[in-house]
């Protein structure tokens, strides 16, 4: 039986061409056939230890090969469509950080508003699909070309979602009200003059008007209508968007919030927020916030300010 396992390992590792594992394989083969002379120390190692080693290595290789997020090389692109950037990566990192919670949450419908290249929705699908194979995904974008590019990205990764070209979610609000369990939004958040908001083409991907809030402020009530009772909402913001104000506004609608990821790049101070309806007591897989969002913001804002002053 043990010998069969070693042979099985040999086959698998040969197929995977993993160099570190090849060593373990070679030694396993040696112990099996006893013809090549392994170093004396190896001969002393019990066979079971070998088995454990090779099986562990095999497991590591296999799990690393299963991609948890979209492959940037397989994300489709077009000159009029926003390419994944720091904000997209930060959002996906936030989802990754929350992966176990998301899986335990067992969402049935997940949605992205403003899917762009499709990088985020594809990543969300990839990190949920193994444990939750029957989730319904929806993605919207105002840019027709972005909708097409999202479809190409989804196809390139062997996954699918319903992609619709619409303004935020205007053609879906009525029928999807109260049904969305996970909502993900990376809005146009850059502070720009108002006239730049909603212009045709790629600029609509970043132009956010005054304080970068024009589109965000239109999205929030839509999200509130679409989210289910247990709905979770992830939003990308900059410090320039006054995220504490956003959180206070959502608080009035009955949502608690916390910062999931915070990232300072050369150009932007990104804050990825998570919102959930906060009526119940904390449960096992529900959100727990050990400190109020005001304290969190004071702390993070003061550390940002320190960096600026240096």
């Amino acid at each position, binding site marked *: 039986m043990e010998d069969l396992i070693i042979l099985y390992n040999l086959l698998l590792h040969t197929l995977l061409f993993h160099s570190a594992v090849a060593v373990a394989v070679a030694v396993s083969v040696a112990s099996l056939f006893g013809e090549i002379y392994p170093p004396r120390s190896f001969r002393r190692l019990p066979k079971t230890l070998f088995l454990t080693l090779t099986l562990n290595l095999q497991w590591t290789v296999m799990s690393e090969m299963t991609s948890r997020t979209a492959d940037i090389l397989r994300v489709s692109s077009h000159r009029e469509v926003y390419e994944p950037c720091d904000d997209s990566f930060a959002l996906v990192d936030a989802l990754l950080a929350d992966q176990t919670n998301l899986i335990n949450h067992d969402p049935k419908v997940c949605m992205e508003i403003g899917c762009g290249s499709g990088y985020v929705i594809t990543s969300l699908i990839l990190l949920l699909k193994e444990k939750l194979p029957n989730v319904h995904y*929806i993605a919207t974008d*105002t840019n027709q070309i972005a909708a097409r590019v999202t479809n190409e990205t989804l196809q390139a990764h062997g996954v699918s979602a*319903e*992609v619709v*070209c619409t303004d935020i979610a205007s053609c879906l609000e009525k*029928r999807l009200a109260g049904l969305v369990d996970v909502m993900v939004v990376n809005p146009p958040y850059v502070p720009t003059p108002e006239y730049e908001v909603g212009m045709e083409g790629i600029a609509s991907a970043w132009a956010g008007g005054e304080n970068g809030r024009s589109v965000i402020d239109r999205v929030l009530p839509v999200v509130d209508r679409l989210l289910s009772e247990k709905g979770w909402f992830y939003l990308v913001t900059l410090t320039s968007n006054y995220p504490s104000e956003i959180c206070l506004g959502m608080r009035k609608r009955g949502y608690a919030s916390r910062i999931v990821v915070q990232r300072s790049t050369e150009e932007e101070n990104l804050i990825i927020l998570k919102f959930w309806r906060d009526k119940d007591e904390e449960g096992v897989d529900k959100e727990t916030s050990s400190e109020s969002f005001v304290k969190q913001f004071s702390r993070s804002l003061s550390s940002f300010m320190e960096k600026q002053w240096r």
Partner: protein
Amino acid sequence: MRLIMHNMLTCNIKGVINKSPLRIEAEKVIKKEVDFNPDFLRHMLAKIEWKALVDGARSMGYTELPVHAPGIESDEPFLRKFHHALLELNLEEGSLVCQESGRKFPVNKGVPNMLLHEKEV
């Protein structure tokens, strides 16, 4: 665009009262197999507008769906037909037509374009 999505779409033109369902004018339909999951289907059954699904499926060339959805006892043969209509028929090219205003929303490469013109908002 699959019928699971079509069932959720409404026409949001200002003044239109009968917002859904949208009539399908199919030009190109592709069938893509999807894993059969009875739990998911039973979960969706309550949320689907049945007549819209039947009419939509007919426009895409599938006529096997019963006119009325069965009550609590949904057996496997029915679920298989439901599964096929809801998830495996893809409208690649065509239009979605608002029954009241006549406005056509194009569907290209599987993506419906529901954007409204300024005057329609």
